[in-house]
């Protein structure tokens, strides 16, 4: 349990604990401590000292985000303030938040209440993707239990702090997970991203100060309060605090979630997942889900945290390690991602709306041996057009182009070989 504070108490069949059972096994110990012993500022400072980085993909420092929210709230004056829980998990390869919501809803709720207290939120809204029905049911039931126990509602544990919490069930579409689109979704607008600034901390849900945090980020909070920032930092092998819930999938013998110290290497994670399946060798891996750049055997020993993976030209993203073996055609693999991102473009920006389907078609043609030499130039052109993050209205497009960009760099010869109608690695 102490080595896996995040998932150690999950049942094997993923059924959630009842409120009473959860309390018996140590749940809801942090909340009374937080409310009675610490000021909101002290909690923010604790999370800052813990070096907790957001687990939604970008790795933004949670303490900094919360401080910005407190500043935004101070300027905004009296009225509602919101904490949104981002439970939209749809990134290809990611399956971590599902477990945290289905099996450990009370841990998430406790983290959300403490976070709300720290940032001064008056309401928590957990957006859960439509496809995670069991998660929405578990969370809704757990919220009712927490309310009945006086941990949500008016004057929580006699502290004078009031808070409500509810679930907003989504209805499909990856873009809803982008934080400004998520805010639009809860308001009942078409969930397309909004311009930043103003940032949500200043003007978010219904124009009020809002913090959006990922499920895993908030689930880590109770243990930080209970056991301290030093302990949390000590769990990690690097400067970024905590354990990380890595998801290992693709060509491994036993695909699975692995909670391990932040900074665990891909080599270790692949080993723990039973190694490359069928005794094959590694071709490449994506360390953090569909929108992260490919790495190869030379990078197997890079500590998997935000800073180290960035340094080698990739990203931790959602910590979803997708493994490709030496029979996997990278053109086909990138093509699968391209289809997904093309389908999920919200349509606001032309290069994303029209560019991604074009890229997807080009990749399908190449995979099928119908590619033309100029198609590879076109693929390069699309990568260049998409440019670095910041050129489009949101990061979906830059993320979508990332596997293609790194694929063209690393597997240019494989792309070229497809022009002659054959795949040098293909699984056939």
């Amino acid at each position, binding site marked *: 349990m102490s080595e896996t504070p995040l998932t150690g108490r999950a049942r094997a069949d993923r059924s959630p604990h009842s409120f009473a059972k959860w309390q018996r096994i140590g749940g809801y110990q942090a909340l009374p401590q937080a409310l009675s012993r610490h000021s909101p500022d002290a909690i923010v400072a604790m999370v800052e000292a813990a070096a907790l980085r957001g687990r939604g993909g970008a790795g933004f420092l949670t303490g900094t985000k919360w401080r910005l929210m407190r500043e935004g709230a101070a300027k905004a004056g009296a009225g509602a303030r919101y904490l949104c829980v981002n439970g939209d998990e749809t990134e*290809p390869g990611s399956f971590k938040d599902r477990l945290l919501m289905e099996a450990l809803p009370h841990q998430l709720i406790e983290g959300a209440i403490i976070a709300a207290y720290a940032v001064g939120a008056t309401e928590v809204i957990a957006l859960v993707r*439509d496809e995670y029905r069991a998660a929405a049911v578990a969370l809704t039931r757990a919220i009712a239990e927490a309310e009945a126990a006086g941990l949500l509602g008016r004057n929580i544990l006699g502290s004078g702090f009031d808070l409500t919490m509810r679930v907003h069930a989504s209805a*499909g579409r990856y873009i809803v997970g982008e934080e400004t689109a998520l805010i639009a979704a809860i308001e009942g607008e078409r969930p397309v991203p909004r311009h930043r600034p103003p940032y949500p901390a200043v003007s978010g849900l219904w124009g009020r100060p809002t913090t959006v945090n990922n499920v895993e980020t908030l689930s880590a909070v109770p243990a930080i309060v209970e056991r301290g920032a030093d302990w949390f930092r000590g769990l990690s092998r690097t400067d970024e605090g905590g354990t990380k819930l890595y998801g290992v999938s693709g060509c491994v013998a036993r*695909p699975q979630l692995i909670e391990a110290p932040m900074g665990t290497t891909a080599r270790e994670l692949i080993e723990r997942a039973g190694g490359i399946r069928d005794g094959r060798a590694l071709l490449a891996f994506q360390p953090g889900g569909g929108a992260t750049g490919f790495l190869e055997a030379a990078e197997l020993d890079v500590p998997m945290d935000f800073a180290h993976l960035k340094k080698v030209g990739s990203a931790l993203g959602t910590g979803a390690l997708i493994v490709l073996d030496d029979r996997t055609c990278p053109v086909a693999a990138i093509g*699968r991602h391209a289809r997904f991102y093309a389908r999920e473009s919200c349509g606001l920006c032309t290069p994303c709306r029209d560019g991604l389907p074009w890229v997807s078609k080009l990749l399908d043609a190449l995979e099928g041996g119908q590619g033309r030499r100029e198609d590879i130039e076109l693929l390069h052109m699309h990568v260049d057009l998409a440019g670095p993050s910041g050129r489009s209205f949101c990061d979906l497009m830059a993320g979508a182009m990332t596997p293609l960009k790194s694929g063209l760099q690393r597997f240019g010869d494989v792309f070229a070989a497809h022009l002659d109608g054959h795949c040098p690695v293909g699984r056939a």
Partner: protein
Amino acid sequence: MTLSPATKSAIVEAAAAHGGPKAAMLEALKLVQQAEGYVSDANLAEAALTLGVTTAEIDSLATFYSQIFRSPVGETVILLCDGLSCYLGGADAVRDAVMQKLGIGFGETTPDGKFTLINICCVGGCDRAPAALVGPDRTLVGPLSADDLTALIGGAP
């Protein structure tokens, strides 16, 4: 087809719980779909009327969200994952097998109205690739095999 009094009152309740009629539009669509299987033009208009929003407003959500169905679907909806991890687990073979068995492609419903097949990514079951979600509870099934489609279509002939 009109909405039942129960569905209508649930829509009214949703408006109170979600912070107003506009914010409850998606929940209203989901309630309609739960009761009727899909959201027809007539029911869309009635849901809008019940909430006091325009049909255009509510349809702007209905046409955006992929899991709101604006045309009829089969008794069992199968959401088959076509993401990379599932592809690496052999999803293409499962896709081909189920398409052949049911005689339909993605986005189609069997003539007997039993099954609708939809592609989706990712369903958060990459550790059980190839994976799918089946039925009203979106139950996660996997790892699927092309030789045995029972988990997807039961004993369908």
